[in-house]
């Protein structure tokens, strides 16, 4: 039953997410693309792109959109897709929410505990590897195209990747602007000229 699986999967994603929206993207990618096969890598990439240009926490946006896509791809009506979307965003919040309340109530004084600090710094380092793996897994024919099939798309993809990478690190250009520009470039080159 896809709804039960959706619930369990996104509960797991929520409680194992340390380190922000990008870490959550890594977890969701592994669960919904690799393990459950609910969508393709290209679909997932499109979901991440859309989630970055709309308001709200990226984790919530990706969960909502992925929940909808998973259910619709499984052959259900859009109505059930909407139910899947709400279920996924509810599940992803549920366990951390309970944990926040429990900790707020009983354990607030312990957050300066040195052991917890060490655990957090190890997790922080691990999450960097997690995100790096997510990025590496996204470098494939679905996102970049192939040289054999369409050399122009392949080289343009590499160019756009390099430009976005430098723009993010060196000039700190906002992701929204980058996605909008890449969308315009893609629309013009691939639709108008090809």
């Amino acid at each position, binding site marked *: 039953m896809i709804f039960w699986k959706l619930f369990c999967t996104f509960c797991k994603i929520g409680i194992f997410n340390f380190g922000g929206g990008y870490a959550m993207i890594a977890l969701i990618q592994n669960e919904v693309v690799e393990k459950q096969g609910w969508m393709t890598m290209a679909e997932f990439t499109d979901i991440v792109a859309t989630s970055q240009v709309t*308001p709200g926490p990226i984790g919530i946006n990706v969960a*909502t959109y992925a929940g909808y896509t998973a259910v619709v791809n499984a052959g259900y009506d859009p109505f059930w897709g909407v139910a899947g979307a709400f279920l996924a965003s509810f599940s992803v919040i549920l366990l951390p*929410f309970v944990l926040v309340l429990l900790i707020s109530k009983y354990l607030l004084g312990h957050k300066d505990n040195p052991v917890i600090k060490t*655990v957090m710094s190890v997790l922080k380092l691990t*999450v960097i590897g997690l995100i790096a793996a997510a990025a590496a897994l996204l470098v494939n024919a679905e996102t970049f195209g192939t040289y054999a099939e369409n050399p122009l798309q392949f080289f343009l993809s590499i160019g756009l990747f390099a430009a*976005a990478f430098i723009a993010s690190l060196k000039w700190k250009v906002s992701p929204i602007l980058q996605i909008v520009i890449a969308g315009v470039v893609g629309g013009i080159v691939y639709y108008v000229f090809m």
Partner: protein
Amino acid sequence: MASLGQLFWSFFKIGTFTIGGGYAMIPLMEKELVDRHGWVTRDEFMGIITLAQTLPGIFAANMAAHIGWRLRGVPGAVTAVIGNILVPILIILALAMGLHYLQGNAVVEAVFKGIRPVVVALIAAPVFRMAKTARISLRNFWIPVLAALLIWLLGISPVWVILAAGIGGFVYGKYLEKKEVQS
């Protein structure tokens, strides 16, 4: 003291008017909760940020849950979280439905063909930014490298990697780190 309606409205504004993820909400939260309403002091606010970052889950939802709880108990926590994510969920849902409807449309496909490699770069870039803030050194750089290789090449689930890191960090912090300091 805050009413549930005020709490909802404040988090509604915070969630609706920030694009770019949870951390982008911090300035607006500070303005709304500290400066405008005085529901928490600036010091408390900083403490809550640390708490929300330390706990698993979604940063913005954790912030909303804790501040809502502080002001109005469990109903306050539920109200703040719903206020924070309601509009974002509806917007992304509308887009999801629209884009599914347009699936196979040549223009949409062309646009996303351009966007996909940029998304990969947007996910790769924070790796280097985070590496700086996490104080990577010769002694600990094997941790992220090993984590990445386990997931990327061996296909191990990130969940297991996180679990192992948590347990490893706990054992190290509890039994090994202290001895190093003493000796």
